[in-house]
């Protein structure tokens, strides 16, 4: 299976926002998680890989394919589920999926019928296949989205924040589906839910402000923080003081009281207790640990 290699990818929008700043990534078969806060550049990166956006500089290759210039070849192997999408309200799932299947090149009718049927079944939409998409719930719509992305046996699947708006049960079903695919396909999943990545992905990258902050296996990333995370419950008024003194990577509420987590090479004492590092800590340490503190997440 061919790897997706991104080298020095940059993009600045016409309004001056730098969406991608020298991004380099190597993505192999399997689930790849792309973590980052809103506006970090995840969608820009994914759209660029999905041939929907141009880059100012850098290259992307998928095996032998130059993604930025051989758009058609990429699209033939691509399954893409955008972050936000609509549907034609007056068309049924079966009709639209059939339509998209033809556009994906599955022009043999008998085969296409089978594929459409199987995908609707796989995404649990078979019973509702005759129903107009206008009447679909958010979850059903999202599953329809994945069904279309799976048409034509894609080698590269890009799903952009696919679980937004799904209830926990639907989310689980959805991830199970993705996991199956990750066995022999490149699946890129973007999310800002840290646990999702931990549960699903063999590899991941954290990006913020268009830059890749960390790339690697989630468990290994957690290992690197092992024994370095401490937490303490504090008074609200003390927060600023702690921030000045320690590398605060998270502040949240525990039973109504502020609680902070810090990053420290050794036990800081001062009432801090060691805490088992989570992927979330990796994430926050990357986002806030290495950059001037701005705002709580």
């Amino acid at each position, binding site marked *: 299976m061919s790897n997706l290699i991104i080298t020095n990818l940059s993009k600045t929008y*016409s309004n001056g926002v730098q969406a991608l700043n020298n991004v380099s990534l190597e993505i192999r078969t399997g689930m790849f998680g792309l973590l980052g806060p809103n506006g970090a550049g995840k969608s820009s990166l994914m*759209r660029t890989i*999905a*041939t*929907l*956006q*141009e880059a100012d500089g850098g290259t992307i290759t998928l095996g032998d394919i130059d993604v930025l*210039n051989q*758009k*058609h070849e990429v*699209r*033939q192997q*691509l399954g*893409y*589920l*955008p972050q*936000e*999408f*609509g*549907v*034609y*309200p*007056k*068309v049924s799932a079966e009709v639209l999926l059939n*339509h*998209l299947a*033809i*556009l*994906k*090149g*599955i*022009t*043999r009718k008998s*085969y296409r019928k*089978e*594929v459409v*049927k*199987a*995908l609707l*079944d*796989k995404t*649990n*939409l*078979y*019973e*509702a296949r005759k*129903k107009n998409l*206008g*009447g*679909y*719930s958010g979850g*059903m719509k999202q599953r329809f*989205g994945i069904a*279309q992305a*799976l048409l*034509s*046996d894609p080698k590269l699947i890009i799903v952009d924040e696919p679980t937004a708006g799904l209830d926990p049960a639907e989310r689980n079903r959805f991830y199970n589906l993705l996991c199956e695919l990750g066995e022999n396909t490149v699946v890129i999943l973007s999310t800002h839910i840290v646990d999702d990545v931990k549960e699903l992905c063999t590899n991941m990258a954290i990006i913020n402000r268009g830059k890749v902050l960390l790339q690697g296996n989630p468990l290994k990333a957690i290992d690197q923080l092992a024994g370095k995370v401490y937490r303490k419950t504090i008074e609200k008024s003390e927060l600023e003081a702690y921030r000045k003194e320690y590398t605060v990577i998270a502040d949240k509420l525990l039973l109504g009281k502020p609680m902070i987590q810090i990053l420290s090479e050794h036990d800081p004492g001062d009432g801090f207790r060691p805490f088992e590092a989570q992927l979330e800590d990796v994430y926050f340490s990357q986002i806030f640990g290495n950059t001037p503190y701005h705002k709580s997440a």
Partner: protein
Amino acid sequence: MWYAIFKFEIQYRAKRLETYIYFIILFLFSIIAVDFFLQGSLNTAKANAPHVIAKTMAIVAAIFMMLSSMIMGVAVLRDFAHRIESILFVKPITKAAYLSGRFLGSFAVLIFIFCALPLGMMLGEFVPWREDADLLAFNSWHYLQPFFLVVLPSLFFGGSVFFVSGALSRKLIVVYTQGIFFVVVYILTLVMSRGLDDQFFASLLDPFCFTTIDGLIQFWTPLERNTNLLPIAGVMLYNRLLWVLIGAVVLVIGYFSFSFNVVKNGLFKKHAKETKNAETRSTDMISVESLPKYDAESRVNVLAKQLMQSTIFYFKSILKETSFWAIVLCAMIIIFVNSINLGTTFGVDSYPRTYLIVEELQELSLIFFFIILVFFSGELIWKERDAKVDLIYDALPTNDFINLAGKFFGLLLTYFVLILGLILSGVLFQTVSGYYQFELDVYFMAFFVGVFPFLMLFSVVSFFFQVISNRKFMGHILVVTFFLFTMMLEAFGYSHGLYKFGGDALATYSDMNGYGHFLTSYSWVKVYWMAFAVMLFLVAVLFSVRGTETRLKTRWAIGKLRLTKPIVNLGLLAFAVFTFSGGYIFYNINVVNDYFSPSSQEAYRVNYEKTLKQYEYMAQPKIVDVMLQAELYPSDRNYEVEGHFILENTHNEAISIIHVQKLIDSQIALKEIQFEGGASMTDEHEDFGYYMYELNKPLLPGDSLKMSFTQTFTTSGFVERGANTQIVNNGTFYNVDHFPTFGYNSKYELRDNDVRDGYGLEPRKTRADINDARELVNARTGGDGYEINFEIVIGTDSSQVALAPGKLQKTWTEQGRSYFHYKSDNPMINFYSIVSADYEVMRDQWHPHDETAKAVDLEIYYHKGHDYNLDRMMNGMKKSFDYFDTHFSPYQYQQMRIMEFPRYAAYAQSFPNTVPYSESLGFIMDIDDDEDVGMPFFITAHELAHQWWGLQVIAANVQGRYMLLESLAQYSALMVMKEEFPAEKVHQILKNEQDRYLLGRANEANREMPLSLVEGSKYIHYGKGALSMYAFQDYVSEDSVNMALRRFISDWNGFGGKLQTDRYATTKDLLGYFSEVTPDSLQYVIEDLFETITLYENETTAVDYEVIAANEFKVELTVDAIKYRRDSLGVESAIQINDWIDIGVYAEGEDGEDELIYLEKHKITDQMTSLEIVVNQKPTKAGIDPLHKLIDRNRKDNIKEFEFL
């Protein structure tokens, strides 16, 4: 709160570029609006006369109502489109504040944009091509008054409707399609007005005021037209108030219906159905993984199937739109609403021949096609993005060309639906009318060959603009602007197929000649533009947005990647076809044939005049004998004529140089000119076809010589437009004008005096002065004609019959061609035509009163199937001959033939014993003998009367000529009508003629002339001619008029008349005979009717009656009569009345209809006159001049009904 929303709306618009672009487009358009819409119909009105400004503003406001939909329609809709309604509606604002703020805010913006209209028009006064002579002094009130009176109420009404429909439906397309309902409402008002005598309702109900303005100014004199502002009173005021009121009602309804909730319900759409959560997994499923690997089809197959799929998908998506079906339905209905008016001439309908129905359908459906084209092309281009599935679509491995082409073909299929709908309604209409010759081929040809190519071309343009502008509204505006621009080029005469987008429309269809030869040039021009469209389409493909990049520069960068080999090849192919067809068209139009742009044509005429005017009136011989041997080749549209003239010197001096003028037409070649006794060419102006021959031996006075020549007419290649319609495949009709004439011919001179002035030429007289000695000896302009002997042999295709004046001597076939030899038994004027077509014949005879005279053969040559009115025409011929033979003089020939010719022209024309008669004029009229005027009968009688007026009496080519020809023919035909039909029919004709006259004089561009000095205005010699002659015989009796005419013809007959003069007859001569038969007391009538322009303003102000005894009623009425006279300066003023005028009383007749029980002339000497009349029946109405014999601008008030208490 209200103010905040109002302000927000204005600020929002102020920040949008569109607002300013709309303003600028409207502004620029307004500068040329007057020229654009009203050029050619202004006549005496100045380009900035108040009513011209008002009318232009009304039209522009109607057309740009679209802007109104874009500003007002989206004011509320926008919140839904951007999905911020949930945020907005929970804010503490009231519905009233929200709606009124939005409405007033966007209305203010709309008014701002429309301020461009008066501003642009004001600037239009100062553009260089406007000449001061065409303008009144600048007056800003002339612009502001109609802006407030006409434009603002229309905007308010339109804006209200768009605003409310947008707010309630929350769908853009619903807002757009409102426009259709405007059109339907408008056409309905027009239709309603036709049935009614007065236009009050149409004027009241016209939302844009077109009819209202036209109705108001219809009979205004030029002076009034240039000074009066539209009155803010009467129907104008009611109209405006009505539409403002309707707008207000719509707003109120909108307010109460608008739901200030996020979830829309009621009015337009049902609740979304409850989601059924049955998502159980079925058992017999194959999983995706277990499917075999897909084996893709060949690339070509895949692309073809994808194209097919997309096409059908997009086609179906439009079919799902209710608005689409609303458009189709409206278009289908409109033919039924409008058809009352099918081919009306004098209120008579034609049979619903398929081509007439098709033409009506084409004209009426244009707007519907255009709406579909403009709006649905935008919807299709934006379909994915509007539904937000664009990112999914764009990442699919589809070809960019296929994507766009699918949408394009999908759109084309929707045109098919509308076309089939229209054809269906056309066929239904024919069926309902009891007409069953459907001729589906004519329907299909007209729509698929005549309309469809334009739809394709403009759809490509629309796609192009949508893609390039990448803004839906902007795309719409650009398409409409482009369309108007194309029309403007045409309006200014720039119509060459190589640069007028799409080229010309398909030419007129004729039952006789089909589409004739016009298809060739039509097809080539279409091929050329199709190739252009393919290139344009490819550019659109390259620039089409895929993904999130919308900047043109980036799109071009992406577009370059799309330049695949097939795309490049297709582009090159299109370019090759474009170049080749363009070259071929240019070769045909400009090289093989002569192409004249409007300016080069003017220059040519100017040169002709400047070079050759010196030879005008130089003594030239007259033709006295014509012998022609004509070979027609209808299928090639060629002819060859060998002929000779005998020329006689009728002057007192010898003629040594003969000036031969060939008809200026590049298709005609004149060769082998030879003069008896020899001659040599001394000078030639090949450009003008003007050759001078010096005779070896001068032609002495009274002597004659023979001139022989060969003339050919050759059709090669094709021309842009104005292709000859005379020499055609079936229905050739050309006349003496084709043959050589002698000396300078003033018919080539430029006519428009303004244009002449620009070239430094003297103003041209329309007609020579009645005393102009040089023209008194001419019968026609460039008159080299004289009384001639005529003989012709015509050869034509064996399927056709060829006809010319004269008695048929012999007919034979030779080498598969038919030959006809005609010879005139007696001399005739130098005026003949040659006709050839595939004819059916109807024959009959008419026997003169003089038992010793030979019977006259009557023949009608008609196109197979056009036999509806042959009996009426035949009867018309017989009755006319009866009347004219009895009252004027004997008929001079032994035969009379009517020949049908194709409807490229719509007239009938009288030549010696032959009358070519247009296909569109009478042959297919559907005449109801009870209700309609028998127009074929009347026209036949009129043309036959010319056998006397024109062919016996020859009128001199001076002022008044057409009174002798046309007014007398009108009179003669009316008298035949009067004998044959009830009086109502005659009055119906007279009423039409009176309208023709009043409308004609209101639009007279120059000075109106009295009838006896008419210079060539049809409204005078036909319209007023009929009225005045009818009134004259009413005063002095029909017998007296006929006696005068009998004496006139006996003296002035060009063939053996008693008076042998050296000049032709004039109206002065005729009026002399009239005077002789008129009693002294009525001599003033001749002055009023013929020598001056005299009008009346007659009104009955009060009527009453009392019962004197059983069957005895005393009617008292008061009449107000004013007599106007127009002086030589064109000023109308009241003069002393001392006239005999009809007074009439009506009662209820046996059949319940009004019956005239009293009609007598009373001498009216004062403006206000009270009269008492005793009648023997209970009167219902009474009044002055009830039959409208006198010319009166306001006829409605002549009669008054009795009020019963």
